[in-house]
């Protein structure tokens, strides 16, 4: 086994996601170059993890911008809901008026038919 054969495994070994077995392990245990690379991968990983606790302060105004964007979106949503509610009420009213009108026409028609029947008899 050569260094090139295990080189692809070393980044994974560094974070514990890959376990070396058999001839790969035998090689790394005896190869100074691979051991050095492994140590370097571990150092890189450790340094990357420390970045998690390092904060870059955003320029002032970001929080206000985020909150304003959300508030604006919330307002738009509320207006949309209000409008859709009103629209529903509007169409509901029209539908109710139409139904009432139709019912009135039916009643009037049946009444006029009855009165014509009485006159005829």
């Amino acid at each position, binding site marked *: 086994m050569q260094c090139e054969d295990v080189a692809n495994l070393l980044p994974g070994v*560094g974070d514990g996601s890959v376990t070396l077995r058999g001839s790969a392990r035998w090689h790394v245990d005896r190869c100074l170059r691979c051991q050095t690379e492994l140590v*370097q991968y571990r150092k890189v990983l450790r340094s990357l993890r420390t970045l998690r606790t390092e904060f870059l302060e955003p320029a002032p105004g970001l929080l206000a*911008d985020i909150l304003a964007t*959300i508030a604006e979106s919330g307002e738009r949503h509320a207006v949309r809901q209000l409008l859709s509610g009103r629209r529903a009420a509007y169409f509901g009213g029209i539908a109710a008026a139409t139904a009432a009108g139709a019912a009135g026409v039916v009643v009037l028609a049946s009444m006029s038919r009855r009165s014509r029947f009485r006159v005829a008899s």
Partner: protein
Amino acid sequence: MKARQGDHAAFEELVRVTYVDAYNLAYRLTGDEDDARDVVQDAYLRAFRGLKRFRGEAQFTTWLYRITANCAASSLGKRARHRHDVLEDDEDIVDLSARVDPAEQADRGAVRDRVKAALAELPPRLRAVVVLRDVYDLSHEAIATELGITESAAKVRLHRARRKLRERLYPIPGEDERDARHAV
């Protein structure tokens, strides 16, 4: 959770507590302050709209990281479409080894700064994966989903990113030549 039930004040409080963290992630992914601002605003807007879909199984911050990663990927995609000099995965990282001696600097304890510089020089697609996995501890599955790639592609990119970082931070004399010979 009050925020999930539509409590604006509760969501505002969540924003206050997490926005610096989200901004830092956005900045590390985009490498640009203005882009990071846009990404983080977009991320919170999406989070606010999708709050009912947040099932509370993961931490809010993990969920927010995923949204931020997704927004950053969209932003980088847009940026790439507007530029002709898109960085490809295979593009070589600038080798500064002639100007500085990384081993010496490491000994002086400046590894973290050099890691940041090396990260900044990584192609965006590799940087995104290594930042999400090694800095923010997101799973391969989550990274793949948010970046719109397969899980195996995410693993390959992570491997390449780590290798490039190591080579950048600890260049071994003659390694480039050996790799070039190996490639031939």
